[in-house]
């Protein structure tokens, strides 16, 4: 995939939960391969809903969501599961590691579910843990690691199947400043290596440091879509909100 091809394409996405106001209102947006996009917005603005749409965890009421050539909004449960395995890696604010598995077992899990051989999965996981600087914790359980280390494990797990897209939901939200800085640096390194990344956050500074593009969402609409240099400008160029 080249830099010019869109890895994410949202078109007219609308989502409303029960009797509440619409979480997303007619959102259209595209992300090119290799971009690092930060989706910024206050609580309840719809940014996590947008991430869930891209991850195939939720489906829009109307509109289309295409990721890496896959129409995510039309997938059933099984199809969405396969899509998540192959196309996206996710990291969460609270890590979502399985506490009863070792670090290594957590990391190899996505590969094992796709049928990758055990030896190959372990080799790949060990390599990732090594690159991320947590290889020494491979046999430890997540409960014994610091927040930053746990998030690194989560990143390793997200990258295990070499997804074209990495999705991060408030990746530093539960971390102290030192650990947060470690994770930020890690995301920058990944992006520098060509990894497409979408980070959902309400942390302006994280967006500024990790993303090449910032999309602001307010009340379910894209309020601005700008390059990092313009991110502070709510009505910056690039927004495709309709």
């Amino acid at each position: 995939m080249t830099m010019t091809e869109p890895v994410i394409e949202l078109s007219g996405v609308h989502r409303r939960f029960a009797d509440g106001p619409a979480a997303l209102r007619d959102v259209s947006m595209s992300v090119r391969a290799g971009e690092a996009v930060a989706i910024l917005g206050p609580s309840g603005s719809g940014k996590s809903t947008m991430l869930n749409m891209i991850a195939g965890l939720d489906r829009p009421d109307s509109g289309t969501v295409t990721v890496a050539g896959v129409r995510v909004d039309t997938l059933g449960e099984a199809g969405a599961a396969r899509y998540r395995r192959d196309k996206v890696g996710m990291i969460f604010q609270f890590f979502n590691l399985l506490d009863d598995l070792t670090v290594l077992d957590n990391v190899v899990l996505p590969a094992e579910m796709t049928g990758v051989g055990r030896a190959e999965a372990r080799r790949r996981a060990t390599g990732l843990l090594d690159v991320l600087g947590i290889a020494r914790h491979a046999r430890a359980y997540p409960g014994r690691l610091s927040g930053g280390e746990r998030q690194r494990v989560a990143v390793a797990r997200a990258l295990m199947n070499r997804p074209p897209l990495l999705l991060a939901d408030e990746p530093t939200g539960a971390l102290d400043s030192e650990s947060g800085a470690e994770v930020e640096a890690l995301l920058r390194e990944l992006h520098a290596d060509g990894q497409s990344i979408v980070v959902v956050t309400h942390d302006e500074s994280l967006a500024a440091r990790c993303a090449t593009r910032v999309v602001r969402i307010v009340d379910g609409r894209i309020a601005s879509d700008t390059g990092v240099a313009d991110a502070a400008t709510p009505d910056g160029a690039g927004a495709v909100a309709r």
Partner: protein
Amino acid sequence: MSALGRVMRAGVRRRRVQTAVTGLAAMMAATASVLGGSLLVASNAPFDHAFAQQHGAHLAAQFDAAKATAEQLRATAHASGVSAAAGPYRTVTADPSGGPGLDLPAGMTMDPMKLVGRSDAGGPVDDVTLSAGHWVSGPGQVVVSADYSGPALGVGQRIDFPSASGGVTELMVVGVARSVSRTADGWVEPSDVSLLAAAKGADPGMQMLYRFASASTAAQLAADRDAVAAQAPAGSLSGTRSWLDVKNSSNSSTGLFVPFLTAFGLLGVLMSVLIVGNVVAGAVGSGTRRIGVLKALGFTPGQVVRAYMGQALIPAAAGTVLGALLGNLVAGQILSATEQVYGTTSLTVAPSVDVAVLVGTLLMVCVTALATALRAGRLRTVDALAVGRTPKAGRGRRAARITRALPLPRPVTLGLARPFARPARALAMVTAILFGAAAVTFAFGLGSSLQRIQDAKRTAADVTVLPSAPAQSGGPAARPGQVGGGAPGGSTPGGSTPGGASAGTGDSAAMARAIAAQPGTRAFFGSAQTQVTAAGTTGSVDVTAFVGDASWAGYQMVSGTWFHRPGEAVAPTPFLTATGTRVGDTVVVTDHGRAIPVKITGEVFVTGNQGMELLTDARTLASAEPNLKAQYFSVRLASGTDPSAYVRALDAALRPTGAVAQVGDGGGTSQLLILLDALTGLLTLMLVAVAGLGVLNAVVLDTRERVHDLGVVKALGLTPRQTVSMVLAQVVLVGVVGGAVGVPLGVALQRVVVPAMGDSAGLRLPSSVLDVYQAPALVLLGLGGLVIAVLGATGPAGWAARTRTAVALRTE
């Protein structure tokens, strides 16, 4: 509403699944306990309870109508010791010939009926209980006894009584009733007794029924009988039957089933306690984090305990009441079947059972909820808040490492390791499945044993030849259906027996010649019936005397061997017990005044005449009964012979003798066996349902607790099918272990209960009756545990697969 009330109400409303499971478990437990408790109560001295309920007669006295008037008999009610009396009732014993629609097999007739003229079922003594229809309200009607030994007679059936003059008196069955004192085979309008007295072979009389102040021993009853006899005209008392005789007779047959129903009753109650305890503990335990939140908000430990006891009690109380109602409804059916097994009447759910179940179940819920809530209430708030997010370190990790090394898909290995992370819950599941598997195994074994007992009542004969001559009233003891329980022509479904044979008429030799000459005959033997007395026994001993080699007949030996020569015999346990003999001993029997020593070579399993039987070669009795002839024949066919064609050809050859041939030994399937099979099936189904509910509850709790982790793995790409396989894999090991332990437990239960059933009837059972489990069957039964587990987990697995990933990820 107070804060506590709001918390309680919200807990019940918002935790719908656990509320529903708690209510359902309490309901099932209450239903099972009502059934189990009722069976236990019904199995506790069933005769005594029925006797007390019906004001049974301590003494049923038969008087000669020609020697005493009704007035004179009424005066016997004032005899010394009499506390209550009923009668006199006019009686007549008559021979019914059959009736429209009564399809009696060839050679079969109905047993004589003792009919009593009673215009009222009730009274101070022998309060007869109707189980169908109504009491006689006019002439031409009869209420038949449910214990009548003849064919089953339902309401609407007509019965013909041929009269000596050639006419027929017809009675219509208007009701079916049971007298615990066995005072009659049927009850008619008093005016009908005179009519029936003209029937062929009729034997009229008068009946008085007495209760005495002291009648608990045979000696007391003898004194009571003498007092009555002294009050009545001399020589008018023609016969009596004491309640102790009836009780012994009843207990010898019903005793067989007491251990069976007691075992099922106990299983039901035990499982109920287990499931309710497990469900409530799980429901309260899973709310520990919420308890932490409440404590953080300022709730005292006492308030927390009250809130959670309330949350458990609200659905449990509703479930318990519903379950008790359901139990009473279902118990009606089961107790109705039990009535027939025990020969008792009006079995109902005792109020004490209902009260015990309601109080017991709620108490159980209270105690379990209290213990669990107290434990949670004592937790430090921060620890309670952390529960569910940080499981105890080390639990199940070794298992996880082991299972992940297995060459299985990862979702499966993840599931397999899960029980080790929650050992207490896994243990509760194992126990529930264990009980279910034990119940299924026990039921299978019991059914097989009962079937083999039934099979033991039939010979291995391919064809049986019976005389077609009708029975003679009060004739010889030629009742093949009851002889030794193993003779051919066993009891028909209705209980009627082949008629008495034309013994000693000379036809026997012609029958034997016809059978021997018939192509296809491989072997045959004849059977003759007679009665002897034996030292140490009261009453007569039935003897089946074989003409020819009967060793192939398939009689089941408990010990020793079949006899080989005249002078030897085999006998069942009650005979050996009564005569104080063992295999190898010689017992002296008296036949027609002649003492004959008989060597016992083996203990045989036969059940007729309450085990007072002897099976021997006809030549053993030759000195006393030189003309003893075979009354029926059992034939074994050469291989490849078509039995139907053989019977047709033999029938033609037998025509001059009047005998008829039939395929097999004529023994039908016992109604009691069908009843017990149905009872076993119903009780097993109930126990399996309770076991499945236990698994369902545990997996629901576990799945809901783990819903966040489930969201994580689904976010990583776990498909719905993989989710189902992961959740089902959680219970595989539990099911296998439960089955593996439950099956031996069920086998052990069968090995205890079935011999106990035999002991109750005074019988030792042959190993063939006990050894009913084959390896393939045991494996299948063991897999039954797995099936119970998978069935219980299927619902939660489906729920886990359907749960939206985003929702699961938001759940804590």
